[in-house]
């Protein structure tokens, strides 16, 4: 074991040596510095290794041959080893990244950098208060020096503000230190902890001054203008180190010093952290510049760390795990991000569109964004999970709200930024170059993120249960992204097929049903992918990522697995959606609603988790505390995915603008994930000992209104895919409503709709998508008469809409018939009437779909379009075959389903007698009706065909037109604003209240951020004033009353 004192010794020694040996040149100095940093890393990591894999115990290192309080001592414990390893690793990588930047400034820059890293190490390890002050000042001075490696006025201004602010903070620490010494006679932290400093007034003030200094070092909102400026103004390579290493050191300093005050300060720290976390992230929302945005985010993360520290009593033993996850993710991802900013020299967020010129950089950025927001498989995901679970278990609900709100605000700006990077117009004439010494550290960090994420999961028992195989498959597909689409598609399909084959035997009932929808549906929609040419870069990994998440949902046995799958699915679908041409804003709103929904689910699970002995999904069935809240939050979370009214505004754009084969994926398949969640929650509610009927009642109304507004909005769409998207909203409303009925019939209806919607919406979206590919427009009024060009597509749409509309004999009617029975049995008449009325409204948009696209007048420019691609026709007709079987023999599916539902809903209200179904009030036979109608239809058709066999085939303008001839197909085709009359009657129902509300909310957040951030006037003096006022205010809040 190398004593940690050698970290200090080596750094100082080499620093002096460089000064002496300076003539040997800059590169020599640089390499020597890197070697020293490597040595420092080695020392600290050796200790870390010993702590975690050996049985090393914490060790004090004494200096000058005396014991404290006479001399200074350092402590090397597991935490110190961890922190200093982090600092040294970042220091080393930062040294590599900044090698030439330092070089340009001369060898002294290396010395300063070395001293900087060393001083942070000492801040971590020292147990002496004054020594802490000294090395804090050294690190400040070094920082101020290193800021100047960036050229320009901005860096100088930032440096000045920084040095004066930190000097004042250090002064306060010094005053506190001396008072502490005055009252206890020792400068050793351990002695101070043992002493009863807080019992005297003077001691209280001393503690206050020490802690306030430590808090101010954490850059609390709003007294942190100087910190922001440093992050923004200094060189990005160095900002990264400040953000990662200094922040780590500051956090640990606060952690150490907090012991002096005992637990009395926890609450204040938590509140300060919360204010900082939310405040910084709120202001970040309004930010347009990449560097400053990262600055806000860094400060937000510091706030989160303070929050965690303040809530340590809630966390108990898990504190280190949570801190580890959050800190590590932030450190790796934020550092990488800062360095990325340094490479991609784009100032505003919109200019970041240039990053996609090098797709690998986009991948890096995506990794960082998702890691920072806390998506799996990154460490922050597991940390956040544990954090929230522990908070809920100890009743910290307000804190959960705070954390999730702050994280949500963070998600807003990060995903907006990422959206710009992926989709904003790239018409900038500047580019960026990559040099190996800059990119290597970033790649290392990214790899570390993934590896540590995996290890973090393996660290806990729950995490070990997660199935990472699909995720590895995703990574493999990422690696194979250079292959042409045909091979990748085949690999993806085979992969999914094999996976399904192996997983099939282990599933039954509900899980099997949804797995079939997810996997078989996935394979079918992937087949359509063969229609694409070229590489289709980046499509397959993200598509499989979504399916990995979906199957993860099904396989989940524990709540963590479930949430893991949910988040993977969200991430994958986000990438799929953002691939669409004009998808940027829609993908953002999708993501934000998804994140909000996921947080609601997280909160719901955390409440459900209270007082449970197990972590399996069955806790949903037995929620013991606040069941209304738990189920309410869970349902809300799931309903964001099913796009219920009010939170549906993301769907039309997201589905409408997505690629042709992505729309069915995200509509027919992905939405079912939300349904699956709703079902799980409802199963739980049915088994709950509490009376939750008010919740299902509300859910029923939500479903009914969703149907109404979804369908009515669909009627007035001009964009075919948006029409289908609104139709999906309506259909999901049916499903939610049916499940909310909570009877056997209701659930049977719900499942019928699930199966139906999967099939016909996949058919419709695939067909319309394929048509769009052929005709090159989404606008229905630009199409028309395509039945002549693509009859097979027409037949598919015809069967699809007939089925969707619920006209007998196709399977849509199965759902309608069950619906009537279920509604009347339950007694939800008014909701039922709304739902049935909407069924009538559905006809309008369905007719519009088929009329304006396939019937009417063929447009001139579509005269030569071909039938839709065979690769689309295969899945379409496979699904149609399924639809027809389900229509002709509904009992094959419904009977087993009814038996399955009987497990959850005991009352047996449907009786099957062969093909005949009987309920208490009605009867019906799918096969009989199909046969009767079929034969009548056939007979009439043959007769008519026979009698008109000599018919003349005529063309599109051979119509009676009041004696005139039509001028153009465009002016003869009834399509645009087709339901103008109906609009005049129902316009009050089409007012987009939800959109207005969310726009208003967005405006509110932005205005609030825009107003608040004016405190950062840029004037250094104002920042000083903030610090002083902050101290004064905090003084009165914390100890003012006790003096």
């Amino acid at each position: 074991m190398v004593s940690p004192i050698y970290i200090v010794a080596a750094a100082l020694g080499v620093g002096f040596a460089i000064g002496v040996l300076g003539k040997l040149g800059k590169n020599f100095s640089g390499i020597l510095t890197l070697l020293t940093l490597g040595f420092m890393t080695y020392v600290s990591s050796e200790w870390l290794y010993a702590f975690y894999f050996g049985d090393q115990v914490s060790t004090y290192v004494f200096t000058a041959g005396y014991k404290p309080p006479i001399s200074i001592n350092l402590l090397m414990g597991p935490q110190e080893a961890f922190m200093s390893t982090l600092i040294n690793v970042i220091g080393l990588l930062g040294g590599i990244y900044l090698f030439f930047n330092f070089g340009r400034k001369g060898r002294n820059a290396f010395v300063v950098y070395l001293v900087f890293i060393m001083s942070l190490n000492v801040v971590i390890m020292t147990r002496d208060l004054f020594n802490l002050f000294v090395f804090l000042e050294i690190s400040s001075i070094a920082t101020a020096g290193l800021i100047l490696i960036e050229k320009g006025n901005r860096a100088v201004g930032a440096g000045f503000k920084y040095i004066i602010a930190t000097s004042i903070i250090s002064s306060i620490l010094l005053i506190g230190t001396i008072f502490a010494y005055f009252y206890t006679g020792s400068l050793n932290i351990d002695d101070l902890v043992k002493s009863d400093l807080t019992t005297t007034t003077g001691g209280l003030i001393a503690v206050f001054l020490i802690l306030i200094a430590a808090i101010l070092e954490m850059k609390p909102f709003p007294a942190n203008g100087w910190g922001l400026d440093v992050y923004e103004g200094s060189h990005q390579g160095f900002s990264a180190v400040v953000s990662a290493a200094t922040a780590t050191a500051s956090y640990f300093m606060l952690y150490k010093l907090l012991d002096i005050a005992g637990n009395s300060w926890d609450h204040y720290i938590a509140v300060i952290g919360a204010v900082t976390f939310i405040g910084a992230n709120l202001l970040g929302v309004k930010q347009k510049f990449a560097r400053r945005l990262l600055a806000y985010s860094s400060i937000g993360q510091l706030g989160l760390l303070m929050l965690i520290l303040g809530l340590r009593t809630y966390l108990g033993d898990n504190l280190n795990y949570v801190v580890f996850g959050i800190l590590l993710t932030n450190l790796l991802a934020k550092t990488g991000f800062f360095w990325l900013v340094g490479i991609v020299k784009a100032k505003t967020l919109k200019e970041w569109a240039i990053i996609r010129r090098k797709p690998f950089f986009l991948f890096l950025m995506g990794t960082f964004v998702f890691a920072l927001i806390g998506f799996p498989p990154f460490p922050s995901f597991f940390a956040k999970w544990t954090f929230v679970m522990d908070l809920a278990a100890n009743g910290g609900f307000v804190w959960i709200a705070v954390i999730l709100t702050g994280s949500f605000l963070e998600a807003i700006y990060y995903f907006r930024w990422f959206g710009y990077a992926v989709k904003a117009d790239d018409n900038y004439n500047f580019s960026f170059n990559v040099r190996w010494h800059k990119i290597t550290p970033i790649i290392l960090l990214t790899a570390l993120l993934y590896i540590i994420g995996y290890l973090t999961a393996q660290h806990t028992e729950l995490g070990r249960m997660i199935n990472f195989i699909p995720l590895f498959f995703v990574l493999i597909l990422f690696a194979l992204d250079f292959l042409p689409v045909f091979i990748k598609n085949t690999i993806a399909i085979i992969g999914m097929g094999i996976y399904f084959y192996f997983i099939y035997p282990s599933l039954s009932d509900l899980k099997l049903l949804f797995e079939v929808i997810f996997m078989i549906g996935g394979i079918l929609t992937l087949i359509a992918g063969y229609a694409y040419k070229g590489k289709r870069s980046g499509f397959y990994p993200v598509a499989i990522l979504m399916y990995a998440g979906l199957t993860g949902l099904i396989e989940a046995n524990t709540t963590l697995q479930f949430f893991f799958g949910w988040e993977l699915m969200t991430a994958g679908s986000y990438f799929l959606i953002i691939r669409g041409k004009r998808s940027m804003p829609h993908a953002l709103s999708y993501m934000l609603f998804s994140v909000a929904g996921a947080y609601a689910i997280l909160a719901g699970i955390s409440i459900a988790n209270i007082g449970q002995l197990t972590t399996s999904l069955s806790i949903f069935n037995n929620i013991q505390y606040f069941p209304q809240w738990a189920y309410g939050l869970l349902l809300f979370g799931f309903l964001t995915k099913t796009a219920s009214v009010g939170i549906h505004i993301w769907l039309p754009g997201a589905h409408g603008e997505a690629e042709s084969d992505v729309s069915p994926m995200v509509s027919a398949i992905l939405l079912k994930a939300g349904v699956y969640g709703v079902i799980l929650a409802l199963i739980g509610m049915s088994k709950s000992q509490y009376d939750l009927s008010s919740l299902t009642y509300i859910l029923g109304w939500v479903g009914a209104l969703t149907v109404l507004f979804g369908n009515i909005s669909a009627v007035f769409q001009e964009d075919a895919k948006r029409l289908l998207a609104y139709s999906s909203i309506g259909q999901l409303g049916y499903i939610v409503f049916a499940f909310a009925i909570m009877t056997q019939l209701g659930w049977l209806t719900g499942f019928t709709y699930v199966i139906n919607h999967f099939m016909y919406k996949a058919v419709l979206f695939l067909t319309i998508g394929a048509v769009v590919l052929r005709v090159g427009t989404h606008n229905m009024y630009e199409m028309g008469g395509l039945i002549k060009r693509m009859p097979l597509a027409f037949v598919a749409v015809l069967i699809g809409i007939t089925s969707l509309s619920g006209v007998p004999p196709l399977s849509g009617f199965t759902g309608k018939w069950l619906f009537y029975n279920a509604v009347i049995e339950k007694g939800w008449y008014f909701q039922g009437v709304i739902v049935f009325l909407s069924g009538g409204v559905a006809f309008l948009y369905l007719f519009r779909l088929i009329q304006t696209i396939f019937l009417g007048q063929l447009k001139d420019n579509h005269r030569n379009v071909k039938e839709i691609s065979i690769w689309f026709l295969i899945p379409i007709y496979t699904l149609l075959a399924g639809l027809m079987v389900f229509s002709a023999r509904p009992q094959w599916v419904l009977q087993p389903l009814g038996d399955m539902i009987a497990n959850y809903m005991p009352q047996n209200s449907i009786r099957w007698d062969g093909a005949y179904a009987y309920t208490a009030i009605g009867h019906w036979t799918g096969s009989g009706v199909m046969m009767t109608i079929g034969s009548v239809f056939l007979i009439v058709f043959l007769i008519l065909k026979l009698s008109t066999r000599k018919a003349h085939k005529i063309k599109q303008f051979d119509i009676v037109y009041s004696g005139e001839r039509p001028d153009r197909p465009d002016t003869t085709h009834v399509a645009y604003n087709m339901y103008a009359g109906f609009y005049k009657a129902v316009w009050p129902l089409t007012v987009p209240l939800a959109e207005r509300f969310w726009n208003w909310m967005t405006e509110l957040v932005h205005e609030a951020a825009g107003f608040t951030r004016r405190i950062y006037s840029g004037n250094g003096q104002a920042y000083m004033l903030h610090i002083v006022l902050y101290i004064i205010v905090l003084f009165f809040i914390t100890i003012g009353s006790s003096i």
Partner: protein
Amino acid sequence: MEYLNLGKISLLIGFILIIIGFWGILSQKNIIKIIVSFTILDTGINILIVSLGYIKGRTAPIIDASVPQLADHNVLNSIVDPVPQALVLTAIVIGFGVTALLLAYAMKLFKAKRTLEINQFNDLKW
């Protein structure tokens, strides 16, 4: 007036200087004046440190002829607390370093915009 011994007077002076320093930092627009205010603050803190270590009637913790040598070489009862004295030396050094850095920054700032008004350096804001 017997409370107003040397220790307390210097303590008071230290606080007054600290407050003057803060006042200067917050009110002066000129960067040089701010730096001067900072040194005043620094000085105040140093005086504070020393005065807290002061014990009436004892001498400086420098063991030379002026210190009465007691038995067993025990000088502890005749000198003031040595720790603050040691601290203040370090503090002065650090204060010196910071001041030097601040002045260097002042120079750079002046070169950048030919002015020393602190409110001119607000390129980074919001």
